[in-house]
Every structure is written in C-alpha cells, then in structure tokens.
C-alpha cells in the first residue's frame, strides 16, 4: 500500500551567503530572520563564501534559491560568476542579490541572469516576494 502525496507543499529552502572578503553580515542576518518568519528554511552560510562552496551547498541541501548580500563594488563580477557557476553545474537555481546596487548596474545584473535585485531599504514583504517569485518563475 502506498501513502497519498504529502498534503502540504514543503517550505522553500534558501541558501544565504556573502561572497568575497569584505564586510559584516548584519544585513544577511536580518534577511535570514525575515525569511524564517515567512516560513522558509534558511541555510545560513554567512561571510567569506566562495562561489564553488555555494554550488556544493546548493547541491547537498537541494536549495530552491540563493540569496547573496553585496556591499562592495564586487557585485558586477561576483553575482554573474555565481549564476554562471550554478548553470555550469547544471543547476537552474535562481540567484537573488541584495545590498547597495547602483541603478546603472541593475540591467547588467539582470542580463547576467540574476533573478531579482533588492535595495537596502527593501521591506520584509519585498524580500519574501522576490524570493518566492524567483522560485516560481524557475522552470
């Protein structure tokens, strides 16, 4: 006898990380709590993560999305590298970027495959909505 499919859809699993060597993870911790309170399971990696490590974590944790916090000028190189590394590994996991991103950089990041970009003033609803719709629009 086989059981019926489980009734509830499982929680979204989101990997949160900061790439490179800069800064603090205060903003990332706030986002972690927002997502938890919205019912997500947050795999918290924190500071100084490498692109390759994030890919390995996404595979092992079967994550639905990656959230990157960016507070230096590195976003234009690191965020596209993250997207590319995931695609190279055969993963279609969406990447959401948050932090201080100049307006002129938004379009290039989108072109590079970043699913959503959030400014430092994004509300809880905006953060959660960005992650959910990024996951929903992934084939």
């Amino acid at each position, binding site marked *: *006898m*086989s*059981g*019926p*499919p*489980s009734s509830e859809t*499982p*929680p979204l699993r989101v990997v949160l990380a900061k790439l490179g060597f800069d800064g603090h993870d205060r903003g990332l911790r706030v986002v*972690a*709590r927002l*997502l*938890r*309170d*919205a*019912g*997500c*399971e*947050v*795999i*918290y*990696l*924190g500071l100084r993560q490498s692109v390759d*490590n994030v890919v*390995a*974590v996404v*595979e*092992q*944790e*079967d994550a639905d999305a990656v959230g990157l916090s960016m507070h230096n000028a590195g976003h234009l190189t690191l965020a596209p590298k993250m997207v590319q590394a995931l695609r190279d*590994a*055969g*993963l*279609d996991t969406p990447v959401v970027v948050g932090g201080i991103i100049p307006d002129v950089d938004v379009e290039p990041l989108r072109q590079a495959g970043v699913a959503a970009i959030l400014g430092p003033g994004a509300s809880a609803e905006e953060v959660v909505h960005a992650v959910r719709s990024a996951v929903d629009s992934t*084939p």
Partner: protein
Amino acid sequence: MTQRGLDLDDIVERALGGQRRAVGRLLSVAERGGAEADRLTAALHGRSARAHIVGITGPPGSGKSTLVGRLTAAAAASGANPAVLAVDPSSPLTGGAILGDRIRIDRTGGDVFVRSIATRGHAGGLAVAVPGAIRVLDATGFDPIIIETVGVGQVEVDIAAMADTTVVVANPGTGDAVQANKAGLLEIADIFVVNKADLPEAEALRLDLERMLDLSHVTGHEAYRGRRAPIVLTESLSGTGIDELWTEIIDHRSLLDASNARQLRQLLRLRAEVEALVAGRIHRLTRAVFDSSAGERALADLASGRIDPVAAAEIILDEGTASLGS
C-alpha cells in the same frame, strides 16, 4: 512527478553513481514523505551497505557542530567517506527555520557532505524523515553517517538514541551533567564527551559523570548497555582530544560488530520507522473520517450530548476500518 520534471528512477540511478546533486534531491524526497518517498524506500531497501550511524547530542551551544566538523575530518583522514545530517528545530509559529549547524561544521570539517534538516513540526515527521535520509546516504556509499541533534525534546533524543553509537556532549561549569540526567541523555550515551575542556572545571564535570556512571553500574543499566560508557575530554576549537574520541567511536563499532548488537540496533531502528509509518497512515485515515459526513455526524452527536467522546472515537475507528476494505 518529482520536482523540476525529473523521473525518480533516473535520480536514483545518478545518486547511486555518486552524483551529489542527485543525492541531495533524494534526501528531499525522503524528507517530504508521501507516495514518492514510499517508492524511494522500495527502490533503496536492500541496497543498504550498513553504514555506521553515529548520533551526537547535547545541550544547545555545547559545541556539537564544531565537534562534528572535527570528526568528519578525522573520519576522512582515516579513509572513510563521512556524511552529516544536522537537525535543527523549525519555528512552531511560522514553520520556518534558520539552519546554522553547517557553517560551524564547515569551519572545522573538510569537503564533506552535510544536509541540514528542520524538524518541520509535524507529528512523527522526523521519525520517518531521518531513517529515510539515512537509507539514502547509506545506499549511496556514505559511512559513517553522523547525526547532530539538540538534546532537548523527546523526538530529538529519540533520533540520537537510534544511532549505533550515541555520543552525549556536555560542557564544564554549566550543570550539564544534571541536565543530561534529567533529559534522559545518560541512559542513551555510549560515549560521553566533555567538550570545551579548555574551560575551568572540566575535571569536575568528568567526576560528576563518573559518579552518575557508578550509579548506573548499581542499577544494572550499565549491563544493559553492554559496558561502562567512556568519558573523553575534547577541545573542538583546537582539535585536542578528537583523535581519542574518534578511536572510541571506532572501538564501539567493533564492539557492536563482535556480537550481533549492531544488527539488533538496526532492527530497532527499522521497527521505530515502521511504527512511525503506521502512525502516519492511521493519522491520515482518521483525519479523512473526521472530514467525511459520518465524521461530521459523530461530532454533531457529541456536541448535542447524544454520545460521549469514547463512543465518538469508536465510530471514527469503525468508519476508518471500513474505508480500508473498500
């Protein structure tokens, strides 16, 4: 259908071939439960290579993840292929969780397979999800499988107790020995670890534990476990004592293998899993009866005082049993 349009058999094939992404997917299937998890169980049962299951439990913040990282490094150095299941509580209010073990495990461990599992609150969920996850990791070649749980809450303690080798962690100067005793951790320990032994009063904690073990010698509990649990002092930040702990874990495995104790423990695990599966099915069945017209009628009769709760329960059970036959 599996998420992202992949066929389960195909994922199983790739996971057995060693693809970590496929192993990750299978762990999600096992965790989610339901019909697809049932199919996965059918596909993997019998492929088990009998990995050594090591449970690590203890109070919040006692250094379990840091210790687990060190142990995976020791295991890998000895040529083993370890994996970790790190269990953290879900928020009972929102169902969300921040899974923070992995960051600490990665810091002291090497390039090792780690899967974070949230308790997800549903009754008996872990009791099915964890054995399912163990089955996936075992079949795909990981050994040992180290499971970290916080030693509070019956479910978490039960998970740790299911291991072949259960390691209970305590810290100096915290009253952990007494707490561990209350939480029922003393009875399940095959090995005690005094972690953060760099802090004062580590020796005092060891003596406390020794005294409690003296008592379990008197009560006959020690004979039941097969031996007196050794106590190892570790400093998992620096790595001091880790080799000794790893040796104790290996020795315990050999001890179990020398008798049929490891098979017995596996049988107990299987029994607990079957129990949880049965309970889950009965739960779904009764819920369906509650939602049916017969269930609503029974509740209405209960509300109007025509029948009592025991009679209502009998009606629900009868209806459920009848629906099984149809």
